């Protein structure tokens, strides 16, 4: 038995001329809660679909629970809970219809778990899915995903479109689901607060390419922000390895860097700054800087003065 619930090898997918996932080598450790991060269109959903055998890769391979993704037998699928993006559910079904339908399909169906998740989301069992609010539908979908007692839970952007209360409920349900130590959860999200609260490991996709795979702590420690203050206008920066964001201002440069080494620090000190401050950075800021694009040597426009504005209006 592999130590990884999910493994991919050079997984690549093209849609026509568009490269969506490229040369992805990913390992999701068994028993981990794995946050899958990336901007819209970075290839998270495509990766999850390929891993589940719902989409064939252009090349490369993947395995899930030790089986080739493209030929998953039914008993392995029974061990994988998948909550697709957008919380799909048959609209005509009432909650009890959905329960009865799912129960017949899954051998390890847990009625109590199903009911408790629904109660947590305050879903009326008589309601039809099409008449539910987004939060209620998310609750129903999550209940349907958790009740089969899966060994591996794959949640594709589960909190999308939910209000903060529903999102919190969803996360708490997921926490409930992690009570089993041997259960692996992989979920993709844009919401860093959710990742921070839930995940112990993360992977970051940056436009089809895997840029990071590490524990949350490692990621946090690897992304650092410095403010370099100068007496006059800041100089042109030489190429510095690991710069992910550079915001020049009148007499300072705010630099966000990854994998800062002693060599990097020495390079910064030689820039002629009168003062170098390392400032704390939140995970969300780290992530935004990490994936938000490099603004190297880009000066933000000066804020117009009030008098100029008034003159313009006059």
């Amino acid at each position, binding site marked *: 038995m592999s130590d990884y619930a999910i*493994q991919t090898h050079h997984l690549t997918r093209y849609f026509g001329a568009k490269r969506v996932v490229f040369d992805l080598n990913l390992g999701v450790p068994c028993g981990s809660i794995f946050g899958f991060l990336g901007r819209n269109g970075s290839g998270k959903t495509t990766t999850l679909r390929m891993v589940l055998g719902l989409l064939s890769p252009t090349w490369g391979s993947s395995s899930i629970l030790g089986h080739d993704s493209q030929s998953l037998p039914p*008993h392995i699928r029974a061990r994988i809970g998948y909550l697709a993006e957008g919380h799909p559910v048959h609209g005509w079904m009432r909650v009890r219809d959905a329960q009865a339908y799912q129960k017949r399909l899954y051998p390890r169906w847990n009625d109590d778990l199903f009911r408790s998740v629904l109660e947590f989301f305050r879903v009326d069992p008589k309601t039809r899915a099409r008449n539910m609010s987004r939060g209620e539908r998310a609750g129903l979908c999550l209940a349907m995903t958790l009740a089969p007692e899966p060994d591996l839970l794959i949640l594709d952007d589960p909190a999308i479109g939910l209000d903060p209360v529903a999102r919190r409920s969803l996360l708490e349900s997921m926490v409930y689901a992690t009570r089993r130590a041997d259960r692996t959860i992989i979920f993709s999200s844009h919401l860093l607060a959710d990742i921070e609260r839930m995940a112990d490991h993360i992977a970051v996709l940056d436009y089809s390419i895997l840029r990071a795979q590490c524990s949350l702590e490692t990621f946090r420690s690897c992304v650092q922000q410095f403010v370099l203050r100068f007496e006059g206008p800041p100089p042109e920066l030489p190429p510095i390895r690991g710069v992910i964001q550079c915001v020049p201002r009148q007499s300072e440069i705010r630099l966000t860097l990854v994998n800062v080494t002693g060599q990097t620090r020495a390079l910064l000190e030689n820039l002629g700054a009168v003062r170098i401050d390392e400032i704390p950075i939140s995970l969300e800021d780290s992530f935004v800087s990490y994936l938000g694009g490099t603004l190297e040597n880009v000066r933000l426009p000066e804020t117009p003065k009030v008098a100029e504005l008034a003159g313009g209006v006059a």
Partner: protein
Amino acid sequence: MISIFLRELRENLKWAAVIFGVLLVMVLHELRDPPTMLLFDLPQRYTLWLGPIAGLLMGVVQVLFETRPDNWGFVVHRPVPRAGIFLAKCAAGLLLLYAALALPCLVAVISAARPGRLAIPFQGRMVFPMLADVLNAGCYYFAGMVLTLRKARWLGTRLLPLGVPLASSAIAIMFIAPFWQALLVILIVQAIGAAAAWGVFADNGAAERRVATRFALGAMVYAGAIGMAIGLVGFSQGFTPGGRWQYYQVDRDGNVVLITQTIQHGERGWAFTDPAGRPLPQYDRVDLDDPAYANQFLRFNARLVDRESIPWPITVLYTSAGYRSPMPGLIPLRAVAPAGVRLRFSAVYDIPQRAIDLFDPVTRMPIGLVGPAGFSPPDQPPIERFAGTPLLPFLQGGSHVLAFDSIVYWIELDHRRVRPVFVPQPDDPVFSAAEVGPAIDSKILIATTHRLHLLERSGQLVWSAPLDQDPMRCNFDAALLPANRHLVLRTFSNPGTKPYCNVVSEYSVDGMLLHQVELPRLTDFRSPKKIETMAFGAIFPVAARAICPSWILDEVLDVKTEEFSNFFDEFMWSSAILCAILTLLIARRCGMGWSKTIAWSSANLLLGPAGVATMLALYDWPARERCVACGRSRLAARRDCSHCGAPLASAPQDGREIFEPAEAFGLHGAALPVA
């Protein structure tokens, strides 16, 4: 799987109810005052088009939910094989579709089978047309699934899979006589549709993994491409500004007239010459659109054909010999009483019973049977039955002549009897007989294998003359000249037979052959059909040329491939060679291996432009990018460069990478994949 089947049933019940309701309303409307041929009229009026619409609707709505990839993932990510999910879905869909269509039809059948509902005897074969339509809906059901799920442009190839069910309808309805053959065609088309639907369902619209399903999808797309090409060629002819056509007529004096009709900018004109091309001044002012000239030419109202000589598909197209026609079981008899005599019953020839059934038109109850020995009441079997199936039942309606190969009868149903008028020699059986001349003073024209016999209605022989044409190669039209009662016989070669024959013969009142004119074949190179035929040649597959005779194409598609065969073949071969070259280029562009390239090129040499369209529909146009090793354009979706063989470089690193060793994950002895 059962739970998926039940869910599909529940989910799509409403659509089945709509189909059922619509058809039931139509059937009940017809049942208020049912036509005599109710069970043949219902398919023609309703199930023929409602079946396909219902099938298409059910196929589309059943997979509409799965068109979104997330929903599709939700449906197929189950501890059930994907094939099982598809089977359950199809089983539920087809069950609902067939039930929704069959139950109203069953109401019609039960009603028709009750005595007193229809003035004809009920026969089991009457359910075949409706049964075929109901089953044919399944072909559209799978096509609906394919065109909904398949990822293609709506204005591109997405609708082309409809070609196969449309072809199936055309074949099963228009070209096939026995019901079992129609059933076979429907089952084959359903199997193709099911395989293609399975392919697109299993691959979420791509149909890229399984060879058999890809082949089935290709067959569906190809049929659609061919159908669309034929439609476009036919449609383009609507824009032809004018044209010229030539044909022969016989005037009321028995002279052959060659008519040249021209249409220029909507204006029609005619030129009249003799067969040698000499103008006929007496026709200078004749306008054939003017009703005053409606009787300018002789009307041939009697046709003599040997049924053994009629080739397929003429048998189905024009002789009502198919399972959708009442003819193979029943022959409605019309004009069976002398002028001025009103019959108080309707009559049909019951082929299985070999007797004429009489029905009360008001109560629609049987009155009795007429056989060769006369009338018998309905509760008694006929004293004697007829010899078998009448010759050419499709020509019988409206005629008093009831012909068998061993005897010919004159029908006198006003006396509830038939009267034998002619018994042939045993070695010279009758192959056809007809009533010829005006209704009030008609005669009986009987053709045996070697002779032609003209009889009075009483059965008295007027004359008998040798028939110098082979009835297995020719068919005959006959008329009496109004002035002198001479018989004019036009002899045509049967479709597909050679040499060409078009002869006009005139017989005197005592059966002497007065003169015979052999008419040359008309080939008018200014006919608009020439361009249409050439255009049709450009789209016609070479593979079909060997198996589909020209005359069938001419009959079915209304072109002139026999007449302009050289042009047709030149265009067909030129197009085929172009298609093969184009396929070669496309295949190389797609990065196919040489064996696959040659296979596709050879196939498209035989399949023509529709084959190229199919190929483009099955393969995505390949994306290309520059190879970092050799700098040439390489296929993006292939790991190794097709020019230099260098593998694609790994994902570029920009210094931002954060990867932890496996130990940091608490995994001992396991290597974490490294990007």
